[in-house]
């Protein structure tokens, strides 16, 4: 028993170190390279261009990457636990599709220009919430959630939302098109400090709530019926976890657009490294996702500098490739339950 605890501590500590290294690298790289050892001095001086680059541009991005990477990966781990299916992630449920559609509607109607640019994240959030409730209530059957039904409805809503997007894109002007496309591919460029702060604390809050359900999630590895035989109120557990996962995804999409694959790839890799016990998996997935998104952001910012790639492109390519490599090496052995 104790050797397992030591192992878990080693995993968490090494992941924290990796995240810190990624943060430092991210702070020092960009259009203007800033030497690592100069950073404390620049912070202390509290002025100059380099100071504002660090505090106003790079640091908020890192916080956002940390929070969104962690939240998306955590959400993936939770959803995979609920659905007992390793291929589920926030986007499978159609949540991001709904959010993107909401944003697209606002852009096409030009509301972000006439009212305020804050309408965009709001629209994303509303879109994801509408999807969540639609999926949730359509998958209720006699008061209990039917998991397979939920998955199918989620996939269908994804399709409907993406068709809706195509429709909007085909009737809109080319400058609007750019805004929609950019949203669809995700971006960590978020000037609003309040949104960044909200995202950060809701990610940590989500992690905390998820940990309260680590034991029920472990019991669910045996199946819903067996978890109930072990005294777990599966209906309440599934409901709360689903709402937490949906809210987190809604926030992420509202702030940064669609960033795919994090929720699928990171928990999968973590299952292979740390095992599927949710007491370690939740934390390691969160940190792994943070690390992955910070690194992806560095790549997105530097690879075609001075231009920037949409981060969703990087996570899609890197994540997909890593996933294929991992699958090819371990075989198609399902690690879910």
């Amino acid at each position, binding site marked *: *028993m104790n050797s397992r605890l030591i192992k878990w501590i080693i995993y968490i500590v090494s992941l924290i170190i990796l995240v810190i290294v990624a943060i430092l690298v991210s702070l020092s790289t960009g259009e203007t390279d800033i030497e690592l050892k100069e950073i404390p001095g620049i912070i202390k001086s509290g002025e100059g261009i380099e100071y504002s680059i660090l505090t106003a541009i790079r640091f908020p991005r890192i916080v956002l990457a940390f929070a969104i990477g962690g939240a998306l990966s955590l959400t993936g781990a939770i959803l995979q636990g609920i659905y007992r299916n390793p291929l589920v992630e926030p986007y499978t449920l159609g949540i991001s599709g709904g959010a993107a559609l909401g944003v697209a509607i606002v852009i096409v109607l030009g509301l972000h220009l006439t009212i305020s640019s804050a309408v965009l994240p709001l629209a994303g959030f509303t879109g994801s919430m509408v999807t969540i409730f639609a999926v949730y209530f359509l998958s209720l059957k006699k008061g209990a959630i039917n998991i397979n039904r939920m998955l199918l409805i989620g996939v269908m809503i994804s399709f409907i939302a993406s068709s809706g997007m195509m429709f909007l894109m085909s009737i809109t002007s080319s400058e609007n098109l750019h805004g929609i496309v950019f949203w669809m591919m995700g971006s960590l460029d978020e000037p609003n400090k309040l949104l960044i702060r909200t995202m950060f604390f809701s990610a940590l809050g989500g992690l905390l709530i998820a940990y309260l359900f*680590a*034991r029920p999630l472990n019991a669910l590895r045996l199946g819903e019926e067996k978890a109930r035989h*072990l*005294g*777990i109120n599966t209906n309440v557990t599934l409901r709360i976890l689903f709402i937490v996962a949906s809210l987190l995804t809604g926030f992420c999409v509202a702030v940064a657009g669609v960033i795919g694959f994090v929720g699928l790839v990171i928990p999968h890799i973590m299952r292979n490294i740390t095992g599927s016990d949710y*007491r370690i998996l939740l934390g390691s997935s969160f940190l792994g996702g943070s690390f992955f998104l910070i690194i992806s952001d560095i790549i997105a910012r530097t690879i075609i500098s001075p231009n920037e790639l949409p981060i969703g492109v990087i996570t899609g390519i890197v994540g997909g490739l890593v996933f294929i490599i991992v699958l090819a090496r371990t075989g198609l052995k399902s*690690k879910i*339950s």
Partner: protein
Amino acid sequence: MKHYLNVENLVCGYSNSFNLKEICFGIKQGAFAGIIGPNGSGKTTLFRGIAGDLGVKSGSIQLNNTNLGKIQLKEKAQKIAVVTQYTEITDMTVEEYVLMGRTPYRPRFQFFESKNDVQIAERYLKLTNTYPLRHKPMTELSGGEQQLAAIARALTQEPELLLLDEPTSHLDITHQVQILNLIQQLNHDLKLTVLLIIHDLNMASEYCDFLIMMKNGAIHAIGNPSEVLNYRTIEEVYQTVVITRENPVSKKPVVFLVSEKVLNEQREKTKPKD
């Protein structure tokens, strides 16, 4: 007489198709009871009703005079442990799996298993002979070993009532007997009340001291094996010709099947010649 498990006028089942017909029976504390009956007779429906997997439509199930519908899932899991026919394929090690049995006892904010939890799990791992397998993943176990681990997990719940759904159905006779002997020993040593679904009438006769024979969603016969397992009742329920005799050692009834060909030959022989 006061019963430990009391089922009164129980109706439960699947929405419109199959329902139990007001089942009534009682089981004494420490009994080794078996539910028998042909496929589709309602054995599993009754079992799932008692295990709490199917909603009770009317009637009640009482455990020690407490209505099961009124107690919390967690408390229920401390009293009733369920072993289903197949164990879930999971990459947990046997030890982790058996430790899951402590779930109903763990307070919300307790993150790790206590020493006590580990000791209890270890005791039942040893009792079921799965202790040497404890570091293996469940997926690498044979069917019989998985069933033993599932029983160890159920015992780790420290229940008063153990429900088993055909615990031996897909095992060879070595494992069948090994598992039923183990359950019998637990029933005797731990004063555990046992209720199981069992297909094999001879196994049921040999091990159970109380049998519930079901037909078309109702109880057809109930009582000890020699009361229930006579050829007339079996032929009524299973629509099959059987012969019953007494086991020379255990004195329990034994059921013999006779093939149609032999039956016809017998009829030819005994046909009055004219």
